[in-house]
């Protein structure tokens, strides 16, 4: 019963924050709300016993993402432009949500031992982790050893993203080009 109460209040809090974030036009408030959303989602993951995911969500979603969004906020206007509802995208989103809601009823119950996800490679990993790898945190042994390729891919994704951002926004231009630009600007001003 208490578990149901905790889940229900967390989910309704999530929904409330999401609706508020949609309704508000002040971007600062929206950034703060998205941080709060991540924090509530992290709490929900703790309730689901996914402590590692909760940790990541709290650190990345509520922490560094909010800071990056705030840093971006200093480059854009403080308020979102008022706009009317776009009906075709709204219809598409609602239709997708309805289909997902119907699909959820077909999923196995939460924690069902006979669910396919628990009968593929998971038992092997959970049973073998102590003998093969010998560390108590099975999440780490799956992440770093059994699924080492995937984590290498994730690291390369982060690496690529950073390189892309640095190339576009980092201000790495060739020195002679910068000079040329300045000269051009100066000429334009003189001409005026």
């Amino acid at each position, binding site marked *: 019963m208490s578990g149901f109460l905790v889940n229900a209040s967390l989910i309704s809090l999530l929904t409330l924050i999401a609706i508020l974030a949609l309704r508000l036009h002040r971007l600062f408030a929206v950034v703060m709300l998205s941080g709060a959303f991540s924090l509530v989602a992290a709490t929900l993951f703790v309730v689901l016993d996914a*402590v*590692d995911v*909760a*940790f*990541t969500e709290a*650190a*990345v979603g509520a*922490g*560094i993402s909010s*800071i*990056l969004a705030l*840093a*971006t906020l*200093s*480059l854009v206007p403080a308020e979102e432009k008022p706009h009317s509802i776009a009906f075709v995208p709204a219809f598409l989103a609602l239709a997708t949500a309805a289909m997902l809601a119907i699909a959820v009823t077909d999923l196995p119950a939460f924690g069902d031992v006979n669910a396919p996800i628990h009968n593929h490679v998971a038992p092997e990993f959970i049973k073998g982790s102590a003998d*093969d*790898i*010998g*560390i*108590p*945190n099975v*999440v*780490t*042994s799956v*992440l*770093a*050893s059994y699924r*080492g*390729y995937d*984590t*290498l891919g*994730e*690291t*390369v994704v*982060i*690496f690529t*993203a*950073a*390189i892309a*951002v*640095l190339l576009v*926004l*980092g*201000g790495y231009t060739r020195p002679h080009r910068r000079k040329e630009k300045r000269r051009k*600007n*100066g000429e334009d*001003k*003189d001409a*005026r």
Partner: protein
Amino acid sequence: MQDDPVIRVISKVMIPTVMLFALYVQFHGDYGPGGGFQAGVIFASAFVLNAMIFGLNRGRHVWPAHLNLLAICAGVLLYGLTGVASLFLGANYLDYDVLGATAKSGQHIGILLVEFGVGLTVASVMVALFFTFAGRPTHVRLLSKMQAHEGARPPAPKDEAKSEAKTKATKDNKTGAHK
């Protein structure tokens, strides 16, 4: 913000604590929740906090950009080369069994190295992203200041009068178009 004694004193306590906690999350990831990704983000947040309180320039001084680029690449390289090392020792790529005396100690070493690579890349990427985004407004402001300075060198009042006339003209045009 560095003039506020409360913020300065608290940040001096907080920043080392945050970094220590990040190291704990990094190297205790085998035993509790945590690992390279979380630790990297937490470690980066210490530098972000430092830059937010003491200014971007001092933040850049603490973690220079060229070292940051090196760290971004070194993390991915450490991960990839751990796999290459196991290749050279006669196992599959990223099979850590052969890295130590026993299979288990090999796995320990491999996971430690790989997680450290992830942490290094994530931390330096987060710092780089923050400095890039936060550094932009000052960059833009500086540029506009420079341009204003350059524009001020020719007789200023004339320019102003001209620009005023121009804005008036465009306004008139706009209102005309509306009518």
